[in-house]
């Protein structure tokens, strides 16, 4: 009796599962929708809603007496952020750092990536990929603190430069540019390496067969094909530098960047709306940059 009952339950659940599966088999769109709903839901809540909240918060204000957020619409934060001389100066400084880091990283990354992709033997190439990736296994903070001791007035750099009469740059914007260039270099080398690897060797050979010099081949054959990859790498170093506030805190001396202003307003001043408004600045800059480079095909190389 009990066995019979159990068998009936199994066949019941089997038919239910079968019904669902046959329904899904005949409705491919529903199947796809169910499959995508979880990751899409996550994407929407974590990325889109968070960004939207950031945008909305920028139009609120804080009651300085109670510290409560006043949810009535105001443009004050936006106005003060886009007109205040402080924010203009800090934005210019942050942009300068991000651009310098990007230029330095690209200048270092192109020869290394080219060597890895086109010159080195497979064995050397594997070793170099590991060498490029190796720093990523160490903590960000450890690396920046290492630069702090390197750049110190009593540090190893001073010791090395002393005999030739030079001095360490010390803590300041120069130190920030050096440390950030070091931190983001792997993120620039890897996409450029991947892009150069896709340039067929036959094209380079054909170019030289037709009498082009090495530099002409580089300029007219390799570089145009690698440009999207270079831009993809620059997006990494540029956007990562734009939002950084920890490195500048540790080796930046008395300087502050946009990230520091956001941090101060969230942590010390309890002014989330103003912090959101400041946070919009790098967002606008990055979207502008992406819009500029979208035609080059760089976004497909990210």
């Amino acid at each position, binding site marked *: 009796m009990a066995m019979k009952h159990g068998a009936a339950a199994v066949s019941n659940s089997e038919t239910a599962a079968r019904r669902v599966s046959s329904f899904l088999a005949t409705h491919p769109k529903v199947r796809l929708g169910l499959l995508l709903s979880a990751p899409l839901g996550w994407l929407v809540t974590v990325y889109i809603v968070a960004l939207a909240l950031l945008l909305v918060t920028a139009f609120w204000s804080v009651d300085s*007496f109670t510290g409560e957020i006043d949810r009535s619409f105001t443009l004050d934060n936006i106005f003060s952020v886009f007109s205040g001389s*402080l924010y203009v100066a800090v934005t210019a400084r942050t942009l300068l750092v991000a651009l310098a880091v990007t230029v330095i990283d690209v200048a270092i990354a192109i020869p290394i990536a080219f060597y890895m992709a086109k010159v080195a033997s497979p064995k050397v190439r594997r070793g170099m990929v590991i060498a490029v990736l190796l720093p990523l296994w160490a903590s960000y903070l450890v690396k920046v603190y290492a630069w702090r001791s390197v750049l110190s007035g009593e540090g190893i750099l001073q010791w090395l430069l002393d005999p030739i009469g030079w001095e360490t740059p010390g803590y300041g914007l120069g130190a920030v540019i050096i440390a950030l260039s070091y931190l983001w270099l792997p993120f620039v080398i890897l996409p450029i390496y991947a892009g150069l690897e896709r340039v067929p060797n036959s094209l380079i050979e054909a170019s030289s067969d037709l009498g082009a010099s090495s530099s002409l081949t580089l300029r007219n054959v390799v570089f145009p094909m690698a440009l999207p990859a270079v831009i993809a790498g620059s997006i990494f170093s540029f956007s990562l530098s734009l939002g950084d506030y920890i490195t500048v*805190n540790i080796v930046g001396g008395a300087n*502050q960047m946009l990230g520091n202003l956001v941090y*101060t307003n969230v942590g010390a001043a309890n002014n989330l709306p103003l912090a959101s408004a400041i946070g919009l600045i790098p967002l606008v800059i990055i979207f502008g940059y992406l819009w500029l480079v979208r035609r080059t095909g760089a976004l497909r190389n990210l």
Partner: protein
Amino acid sequence: MKIRITTATKISAAVFATALAVSGCSASSGSAGGDALAELGDNEGSVNILSWPGYVEDGTNFPEYDWVTPFEESTGCMVNAKSYGTSDEAVNLMKSGGYDVIAASGDATLRLIAAGDVAPVNTDLIPNYEGIYDFLKMQPWNSVDGVSYGVPHGYGANLLAYNTEAFPEAPTSWSVVFDGASANSGKISAYDSPIYIADAAVYLMAHNPELGITDPYALDETQLTAAIDLLKAQREHVGEYWSDYLKAISALDTGDTVATTTWQVIVNYLAADTPVAAVLPDEGATGWSDTWMVASKAENPNCAYAWLDWIASPEANGMATGFFGEAPSNPGACDYREDCEAFSAGDTEFAGKLYYWTTPIEDCLDGRTDVKCTDYARWTEAWTEMKG
């Protein structure tokens, strides 16, 4: 009726940047938080504690620092501890409930009282309260209208650290980081928080008396401008600002910083042969003072009182403040730690030279009613603009 919002802040050991999280706070009155416990009952079996890092150690971090286990064994109250990084975080966590006890700095205490999140404390039920220094009891940051809201824990000063090679004679004035900073341009450091404006105000109190500053946390617009101008001049010579105490330690150690505002614990961390010393200059200094408080909605009030009594005892107070690096509130605590001298414990002359960190608000804290003072939001704005 108005209550004075006096606030103090102190270091939080494990946080990366000790931003002073203070927002303007309401000065509404009333006996919020209900009545104090009239008599003790049986211990509930557990207690939930919210505190700065390093205030509730059960030996997990360092086996020799354990003042939780003896408490659990003698009272039967199991301790659940959570630490916070900023006073704002503390205030928000207390609002969410679930905690019986909190160790709060002055910039949180009166906000907690005004919001009714903490209850008055019946000090008669805390035998060890007797032993606390009198000059720490019933202060503006731990009492309202003669009603005590907690048990003092410890206090410390923002001292002047100097490199003994750069300054063979100990400086007696903050001028080495202000008017005389050019002598060590690029090797001066300062605390990276708007509350540091008060340090400039303390200096101006002594050197520009015509400004009429009587309380470094009650600055009208003119006085604030004077303080900011002083900081702007200092900015030219500042090598870097610090809010992470590890950063301050490394800069003093390497000699990249030769004069800065500091905490005693920072100087103590440096190796004995490092040419760095700390001094309390003649102008006085800013400082902090902390208080143990009981939540108004405490689920375990008896265990909460048991903890307040335990942490005020010479043994626990000595271990906790010694671990953190501040002066204890109980003179007997010095029997349980050897460095009391270094923190000037019980030195009332030292304590009297301190202006405990306070949240500036619009109603002048020094009692002036003819002007409006600048609040902390204004200080933050001025500070970021000064740094540029």
